Structures are given as C-alpha cells and as structure tokens.
C-alpha cells in the first residue's frame, strides 16, 4: 500500500512546490478523478495480448508490456533504460500512469511514465501506445501532456521511462 501513498504523496509534494495550496487540492482532485479510472482499465483490456514479458524483455521494443500507455521516445534507446533517465537529464516527479498486463506473471501493474527532461528530444524509438490514455481533462492518464512540466528543468522533453509503482487492484 505504501507504494500508492508514495505516489499520492509525491504528487502532493511536487504540487506544493509549484502551485498555490488552493490549486493543490484542486489539481489533486483533477488527478485523482483520472487516477480513479486506472483500476477499471485491466477489465477493459486484460484479455488483450500486450506483447513482451518473459525472462529478458527487449527494453528498446515498443511492444514491451510496461510500455502499454507510453507516448514518446524510449529512454532505453537514448542512453538510459526502461526505468532510468539518460545522463544529464532530470526526471519529472509528476507523471501519467497506465495499467499494463505483464504476460510473464499475468498481473496488471500500475506503471508511472516519467518524462526525462532538460535536453531536446532524443529522437529515437518513438513509441505511442494508448491503452487507458484519456483526454487532457483527465491529466493523470493523459499522455498528450508534456509531463516535463513536473520537472525542475521545465518542459524541454527528451524521453520517457516506464516505472512500476504497484500492482493494479483486482
């Protein structure tokens, strides 16, 4: 559970740094409306194959299961990895989330898509998968935002990592 509190807590902390308290409540609201949708997604597409999985997943392939809601350049092709930002870039501390099914263990995981920021686009391994992606009025599941807005260095977007933050509720 701690994991989830971390996510929420990180949202809050980050937001507190950037916007007024009034906005925090408001935006958090905005986020959580979106986030509430996440647990529903697996039901919608748990049955569909999402590729990847297995012992040695190819982190540079758009089919890798944890990339199910990514929209951007894969950091694994840019000097980083599926979960690490490339040298000299700064991870956004607020993100959009997806719910992806890991073929290997049959579980659905909540994946946080952290944009890596502070340099121009990496330009390699463009990957756009929209499982559970929702419009801009649902920020926490909208991959059309440049989430570098949530980094110390601002919106210059380089690439995106896909971090597991927990298991999707049954």
């Amino acid at each position, binding site marked *: 559970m701690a994991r989830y509190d971390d996510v929420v807590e990180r949202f809050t902390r980050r*937001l507190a740094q*950037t*916007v*007024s308290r009034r*906005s925090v409540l*408001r*935006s958090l*609201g*905005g*986020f959580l*409306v*979106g986030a*509430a*949708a996440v647990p*529903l997604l697996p039901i*919608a*597409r748990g049955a*569909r194959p999402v590729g990847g999985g297995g012992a040695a997943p190819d982190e540079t392939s758009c089919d890798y299961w944890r990339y199910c809601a990514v929209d951007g350049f894969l950091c694994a092709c840019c000097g980083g990895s599926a979960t690490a930002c490339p040298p000299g870039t700064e991870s956004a501390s*607020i993100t959009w989330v997806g719910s992806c099914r890991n073929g290997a263990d049959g579980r659905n995981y909540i994946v946080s898509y952290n944009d890596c920021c*502070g*340099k*121009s*686009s990496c*330009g390699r391994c463009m990957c*756009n998968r*929209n*499982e*559970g*992606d*929702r*419009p*801009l*009025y*649902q*920020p926490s599941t909208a991959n*059309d*935002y*440049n989430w*570098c*807005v*949530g980094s110390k*260095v*601002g*919106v*210059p*977007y380089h690439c995106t990592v896909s971090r597991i933050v927990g298991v999707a509720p049954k």
Partner: protein
Amino acid sequence: MGVFPLTTQHRPAVTGFLAAILTAGPVAAQLKPDPMTTATLPAPSPHWVWVNDIVFHHMADGKAFLFDGDTGKMLGMLSTGFGFTGLKLPPDGSMIVSPETYFSRGTRGTRTDVVTLYDAKTLNRITEIGIPPKKASQLPMNSANGITDDGRFFLIYNFTPAQTVTVVDLKTRKFVGEVDIPGCAEVYPTGPRTFFSLCGDGTVFQVTLDGTGKPAARSRSAKFFDALKDPVTEKGVRDGNSWLFATFAGDVIPVEATASGLKPGTRWPLSSAAERQQNWKPGGMQHLAIHGKHRRLYSLMHQGGVDTHKEGGTEIWVYDLAAGGKKVQRIPLVKPLTSISVTSDAKPLLFGIHIGMQELRVFDAESGKLLRTVAEVGFTPSTLVTR
C-alpha cells in the same frame, strides 16, 4: 617568415579584381541586374491554410507554414518557438496571433512565454505580449487556445499542473489575468465574451468575461458524457452556437451555448451498429471538420480496437447535419490522415495532413476528389487552420 602588413598583403588582389571588372567592356541585350526585394502576401484567399508544426524531434523550433490550396504554393512561414500548439486568426484578418515559449538556452535556462502578433500581410512581427510561463505543453490541438467571438480576448490553456486560462487583451495588447478552470482543460469559445472547457467529471465549465477580460460569471453544464466509459475527445468543431464532440466509440454530442447556459444536445452516431462491429472509429489529432453553411461534418475514421482514438483515419466519412447526421459519403484515403480542416467558402477545399508524413493533401470538399499533394511540408505536420 615574419609578420606581414595585412592591407598591403591584399592590395595586389584588389587591383586584380578591379582590373578584371574594367576589362569586362560594353555588352548588349543582357539580363538586367536584379534588385534586392522581399515579398509580401497577395490578397488573402479563402483557400489558404496554415499548417502548425510542433516539430516533435526538435521542439525548440516550432513552425507554422502558409499554403495556397489552389496552387499548392507555400506563401510564407513563421518561427513559433518551443512546443508550439498552434496559431489563431482573429476575425478582422489584420494579424496572426501566436502563443510562444522560449528558453534562454534553447532547451534549458529561463523560460519566457509570449503572445507574438504578426502582420497578416508582411508576416513581420508586430509586437509580443508577455504572459506567465504557464502555457500547457501538450500535443497541438486547436483547443489549446482560442479567441473570443468579438476578437477582443486571446485565451490560452495553462497546465502547471494547475489548470487555468491566460487571458490576453488583443486591443490593449496586454496580459489581463488568469481564470481558474479546476478539473477542466482546453478552451472552446462560445460567444463574444464566453468560452468553456471540458471537465473530467463529464461536464463543461463556462466562463463569461467582462469588458476588461476578468471573469464575470462561471457556470457548469449538467454531466453529458462518461469520462471513464466513453470519453469525448478534445478535438471538437464549432458549429455556430454549438460545439460538436465525438466520443471514443463514435457518437457525436453537441453542446449548445444558449442564453440560459450550456445545453448538451442529443447524441447521434458516426457509425452504424454494423460498422461498429467492424471496429470503425473516429481518431486522429484533428479528426473532425465542418462546413457550417453546407451543413456538412467530416470525420476521420479507421478500423481499430479500444483506445485507438489517436490512430489516423483511413477514410473520411461525411455527414449531413441538416438531416440529423445522415452519412452521405465515404471518402477512402490512399494514405491515412491525422488532421483535417475544411474551408468555409462556397467552393470549399478539404485539407489533410498526417503527423508522420511531410505532405499536405488538398481535396475538393464536395466531391472528395484529391486535387493535389504538396511535398516537403514541415517535419511533423500537426494541426490545420483555415478560415
């Protein structure tokens, strides 16, 4: 070896050059020297189109290209900064309004957001208006900003992630202030001084501005869509007092601005039950287009599974709004399109682009015939702006 006096150094060469000139001698019937000139735009045509390009691989270098649909000729270009989300054309046609973001070191350093005004005839920069560095960095959509119907106020959606709208007075050319649109996104003008935003709870939130651009009233519609089960995309089109939105599944939902507030209208389907069986869905970056007078709605359609709402269209389906949305035509496409727009004149053109193809396709909007394909159009052609 040693240091040479430099002017001396080159004097022989200079002499040589002038000598060469003098030996040129008299010549007859030769081409005259060309003066140094800079073009200005011809008289505006309803068949012009602006192509906004976020240049996704080089986001610091946003561009907007102007093309003439009748000739396919490029007429001009604007450089529009980092993460460009698209320009707007005020009703009076005198200028072009562009929301721009810059960094002191290209992709790092201090961020500066401005609204730049360009002369619509010379494409020269008239001036820039400083605004808070909050402009939403999002994929380009025409709803990322808007102009009130009276042409007075320019509205920009902000996401920091606090959700607000920046109001700029185009008459006084000053930043007015910010309006909170909590839990809502984007900007859809509905009248001289009103706009609404789409909200995560399935409503729209309307703001009325006073004469100075400050919020005078706020209202929220009844819930008219389910953001979880079947969300509407942000890519709506304006139809007089109404905005038409399409859901992921393929329903159209009108939202009408009335004296007594916003009235969501009756849904109608873009696709029949049979067509949904075949997975036909709307999708793209700018997947709806409209010709108000001709009562025609155009929708980019593709066959795909759940959450393919950004997939390009392989066909354009045409609907008669005067006949309750009866489908009147299917225009098959040789290559898919992600954005379309239709001119508003009597002999309308339909323009189409795909964010992955550097070309502009021009169709007869009535027959659906492909008239021409223009090559070398930007890098990631994003959205289209027609009058």
